[in-house]
């Protein structure tokens, strides 16, 4: 039998991720995986070959544009509405540090003893302090740098002046590859952390149903 919203309410489940957020997340996830796979093939052609070089370049470029468009949807909501408060910085340093050390203690000790996470998730406060800082750096610094360098390399002639300004194509390429390596680690850590819910499937289900189930 299908679970209704009212069933979730009665069960006390917390509605964390509305449908647009879930669609946005999965478009990003699929985009990142495709970019990583095609990026690997472009960079290390001798290791594996899923598509021809030309097809791989096309797929990499189009996926890149979809991910960039997805980023700007997020940015519009961030700038013009009050709906994305979870990426706002914590301005109370004392609160940040005390919450962070509580979270570090949980990850390094409490989690192995079966304790619950000290961070209580709500729609406006989804991230614990460590996640919050990590996502801010990713979304506000790393992702924009990655798509800027990607666009530069997409059309080297058109963006020649910009590339020169950054120190040449080697610098742009190196930055793009270093961030690409960072993203590979990010995806692995992200999936690992996603499995640290009440049950390994809890957070994954949450990203499909929108609800954080209480048990």
């Amino acid at each position, binding site marked *: 039998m299908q679970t*209704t*919203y*009212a069933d979730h*309410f009665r069960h006390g*489940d*917390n*509605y964390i991720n*509305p449908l647009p957020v879930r669609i946005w997340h999965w478009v990003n996830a699929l985009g990142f995986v495709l970019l990583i796979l095609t990026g690997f093939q472009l960079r290390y052609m001798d290791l594996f070959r899923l598509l021809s070089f030309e097809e791989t370049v096309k797929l990499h470029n189009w996926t890149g544009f979809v991910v960039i468009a997805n980023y700007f949807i997020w940015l519009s909501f*961030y*700038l*013009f*509405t*009050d*709906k994305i408060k979870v*990426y*706002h*910085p*914590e*301005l109370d*340093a004392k609160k*940040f*540090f005390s919450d*962070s*050390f509580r979270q570090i203690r949980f990850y390094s000790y409490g989690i192995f003893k079966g304790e619950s996470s000290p961070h209580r998730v*709500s*729609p*406006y406060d989804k991230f614990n302090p460590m996640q*919050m*800082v990590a996502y*801010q*750096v990713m979304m*506000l*610094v790393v992702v924009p740098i990655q798509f800027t360098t990607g666009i530069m390399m997409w059309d080297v002639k058109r963006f020649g002046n910009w590339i020169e300004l950054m120190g040449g194509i080697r610098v742009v390429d190196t930055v793009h590859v270093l961030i690409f390596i960072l993203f590979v680690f990010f995806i692995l850590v992200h999936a690992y952390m996603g499995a640290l819910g009440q049950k390994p499937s809890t957070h994954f289900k949450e990203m499909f149903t929108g609800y954080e189930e209480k048990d």
Partner: protein
Amino acid sequence: MNTKLQVLVIDDDAVVGRSFDRVLSEKGYEVSTVQSGEEALDSIENTKFDVVFTDIKMPGMDGLEVTERIKARCPWTPVVVITGFGSEDNEARASVLGASGFVHKPLTPEIIENITLKALNEKVVAEEPVEEVGMANKADADTAQQAGVLRKAGIFAKNAGLFFAAPFIALAYIIALPFVGFYMFAKLGYQAYNKRHLSA
């Protein structure tokens, strides 16, 4: 298509629901009233409300629980808590749960109208054409529209500032974290040493 703004009032005292209905229906709102939290949760499954008013003290599910569950389902819908015994504790809890505002009984028509406009401002109701939402009072609608535009500009300025400040604040926290951790360990050690030394 119904273009009227939808208001839901949850109060076990039917008189309160009727008061809201009388005042707001005249102003062109569509008012639904229910007398329990359970009925309210069923209602929001079928109707998209623009603003919800809930009493705190009700048999069964209380107003705080209703607020939490409505905000969990529709985080962007303003929920205003009506209270007859405005304890600061209840207000603080409701605020944490996402309540947009509080209104204390006894309610006058002016209070009902003003708190509704104020709550709708949060949803930036100014985007809706005045005639479509059926507001009879043009002056109020204009005020709401101006306030909505100002609010949008304010939101943009604040968010743009936070967008540029957030990475620097995050990096400052990351750099400071080990130092703060070391200081806290040293402080704990010092306190433990003092305690032992004094008790010896």
